[in-house]
C-alpha cells in the first residue's frame, strides 16, 4: 500500500471503531482511535510478518497487545486483514461473541495471547522473544504494543530489565504515548518522564515517532529490526481520540463510547477527513 492508501485504510479502521463502540455501548474510544494509525502501519504497511490464511505459520511474527482494552482497533485491522468477517465487528462485547471486551486468544485467530490486566503483555513478549532468539535461534520478531499509563505498574520495569539483561533485540515495543489515563493526564497521576532516559538506562534503544505519521511509524519499525544487541522501544506520540475532534485530547473519553448522535458527528468528522489525518506534531 502507498502512504496515501494506508491513511485511507486507517480512516476506515477509525469508522469501524466508532461503529463497533456505538453498537457495543461500552468500551475504550480514545486509545483505540489514537492507535489506529500504528495498527494500520503494522498490518498493512508490510511491518508484521503474518498470513491470515495460515495463522499458525511457524515463521510468523508475534503481536502482543499489553494494553488490551484498545482491542477494537486490533479487531478492526484483523478483520480487514482477513482473519474473520468484517461484519462480525458489530458483535463486539455481546453475549456469545468472539470479540470479547478484552481479547481472548481462543476465540480470535491472529491473537496470540489473551489480555486485559495491564503490564502482563511485555513480560509475555519477553518469553516469546527469549524462546525464538535464545532457545530456537529463529528470527521471528515480537511486536509488543503497550501504553504509557501501564508503566505505573512495576511489572513493566521488571520486563524492561529482563529484555535489557538478555539483549532481546527481537522485541520492538511500541508505546502509545498519549499522555492520558482514566483519572487524568499521566504526568499528574504518576509522572513517567523521562521515559527515553529510563529505557536507555535499562538497556533499550529508543526511537520517538509521530504516531500519526505512517512514513515515520514504518520507518522506525524497520530501523528497530536493524538494531542488534538491544531491544527497541518506539515511543509513538499519539493524540487520544485522533480523528474525531470532540474526543481528541480528552481523558474523559478513555473508557467512554459515543451515543448515536455523537457517533454520527464522529463519522461525519472522519468522512470529511478522508484520510487526511493531520498531526499536531508536524
Amino acid at each position, binding site marked *: 500500500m502507498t502512504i496515501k492508501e494506508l491513511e485511507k485504510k486507517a480512516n476506515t479502521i477509525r469508522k469501524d471503531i466508532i461503529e463497533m463502540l456505538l453498537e457495543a455501548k461500552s468500551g475504550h474510544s480514545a486509545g483505540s482511535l489514537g492507535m489506529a494509525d500504528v495498527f494500520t502501519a503494522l498490518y498493512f504497511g508490510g511491518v508484521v510478518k503474518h498470513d491470515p490464511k495460515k495463522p499458525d505459520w511457524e515463521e510468523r511474527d508475534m503481536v502482543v497487545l499489553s494494553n488490551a482494552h484498545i482491542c477494537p482497533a486490533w479487531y478492526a485491522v484483523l478483520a480487514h486483514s482477513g482473519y474473520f468477517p468484517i461484519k462480525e465487528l458489530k458483535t463486539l462485547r455481546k453475549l456469545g461473541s468472539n470479540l470479547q471486551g478484552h481479547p481472548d486468544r481462543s476465540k480470535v485467530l491472529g491473537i496470540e495471547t489473551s489480555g486485559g490486566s495491564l503490564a502482563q503483555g511485555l513480560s*509475555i513478549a519477553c518469553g516469546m522473544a527469549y524462546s525464538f532468539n535464545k532457545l530456537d535461534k529463529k528470527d521471528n520478531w515480537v511486536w509488543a504494543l503497550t501504553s504509557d499509563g501501564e508503566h505505573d505498574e512495576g511489572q513493566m520495569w521488571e520486563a524492561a530489565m529482563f529484555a535489557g539483561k538478555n539483549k532481546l533485540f527481537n522485541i520492538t515495543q511500541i508505546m502509545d504515548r498519549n499522555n492520558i489515563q482514566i483519572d487524568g493526564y499521566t504526568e499528574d497521576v504518576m509522572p513517567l518522564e523521562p521515559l527515553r532516559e529510563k529505557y536507555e538506562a535499562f538497556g533499550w534503544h529508543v526511537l520517538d515517532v509521530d504516531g500519526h505519521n505512517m512514513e515515520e511509524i514504518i520507518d522506525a519499525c524497520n530501523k528497530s529490526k536493524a538494531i542488534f544487541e538491544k531491544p527497541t522501544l518506539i515511543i509513538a506520540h499519539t493524540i487520544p481520540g485522533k480523528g474525531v475532534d470532540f474526543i481528541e485530547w480528552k481523558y474523559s473519553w478513555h473508557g467512554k463510547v459515543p451515543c448515536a448522535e455523537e457517533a454520527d458527528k464522529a463519522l461525519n468528522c472522519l468522512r470529511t477527513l478522508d484520510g487526511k489525518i493531520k498531526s499536531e506534531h508536524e
Partner: protein
Amino acid sequence: MEKLKVNMNNFKNMNLSKDLYNKEKLEKKPTRDGYGHGLVELGKKNPNVVVLGADLTGSTRCDWFRKEFPDRFIQVGIAEQNMICIAVGLALSGKVPFASTYSVFCPGRNWDQVRISVAYNKVNVKFTGAHAGVSVGADGATHQGLEDIAITRCLPNITVLAPCDMIETQKATIAAGEMEGPVYLRFAREATPIFTTDKTPFEIGKAQIFREGKDISIIACGPTVHEALLAADELEKEGISVEVVNNHTIKPMDEKTIIETAKKTGAIVTAEDHQVMGGMGSAVAEVLGKNQPTPIEMIGVQDRFGESGGTDELMEVFGLVAKNIKEAVKKVIKRK
C-alpha cells in the same frame, strides 16, 4: 467391571514401603527434592522443557536442572510477576516452562498473572509453590504458604497437585510436564518420610486408597498423608477401622473415589497443611455435600497465620499430626 475398578484402587496394589508404619525406619527427604529429580528427568526426555527461577534456585532444587541444562534455565531475579508471564510467552512459543519459587510468591504474589495470563489464557505453563505449609518452620508466617490451594483451585483450567512424599513428587512433576495445560504443584520444605515406592502407581486425577478400613475415612494430601496413616495404624489397635485416601490431585478431584469411600465408611476426616478455608478439605466437602452428605472434621490451619518455630513444634501447636487426626476421627465417628 465396577467392582474391578474399585479393586484397582486397592491398597494391596499400592506397593507402599514395607516400613510404612515405622516412622523412624523410613528415609526422610523433602518433597521439593522430588521436583528437582523430576525436572532433570523431564529435561532429558524433552528438549522443550525449560525452568525459570526467581533467585531461589537452590532451595527449589532447580539448580540440579540448571547444572544439567544451563541453556534451558532462565534466571529472572526477584520478580515473580515477570517470571510467570515470561513462562507464558515461552509456552506460547512451544516450550514447556516450569516457573519455580515459594508458594507465598507464586501463586501468592503473582495471582493476577496466574489468573489472566495462565488460567484464562489456558497455556501450558507449570508453576510451583515450594515451602508450603507451617512445616516451613523458622522463617515464620510470611513464608508459610497456607492459601495456595484455595487460590489456585478456584481458577478454571488449572490442575492442582499436592504430592505426599519425594518419590510421588518426582512422579507428579513428570506427569505435569507430560500433560497439556496449566498445572500448579505444591511442595514442602522439610524432610518428610518417603513411604511410597517406585512401584506405587501415580495418575493425575486418581485418588489412591493407601489403607482400607470400614469405620471412617481420612482424606489427606501432601506429607500429612503419612500422619494420617500413623493415626490409622494406632486407631486400629483401639478397634477403629480407618481407610486412608491419598488425595494428591485437588483439582480435578477424583469425585468417584471420594464419594465411594464416604458411602463405605460414613464419616470423613480431611487433613492438610493449609488453611481449612478453601483448601483440599473444603473441596472434599463441596463434593460430598452435593453427592453424599457425610459428617466431616477438618484438620488444617484454623483461620490463623503461622509463626516461627521448629517444624515438629509447629506441627503439634497447629494440630497437624497423627495425635490430632486421631482426636478428629473419634469426634466424627460420634456424629455418624
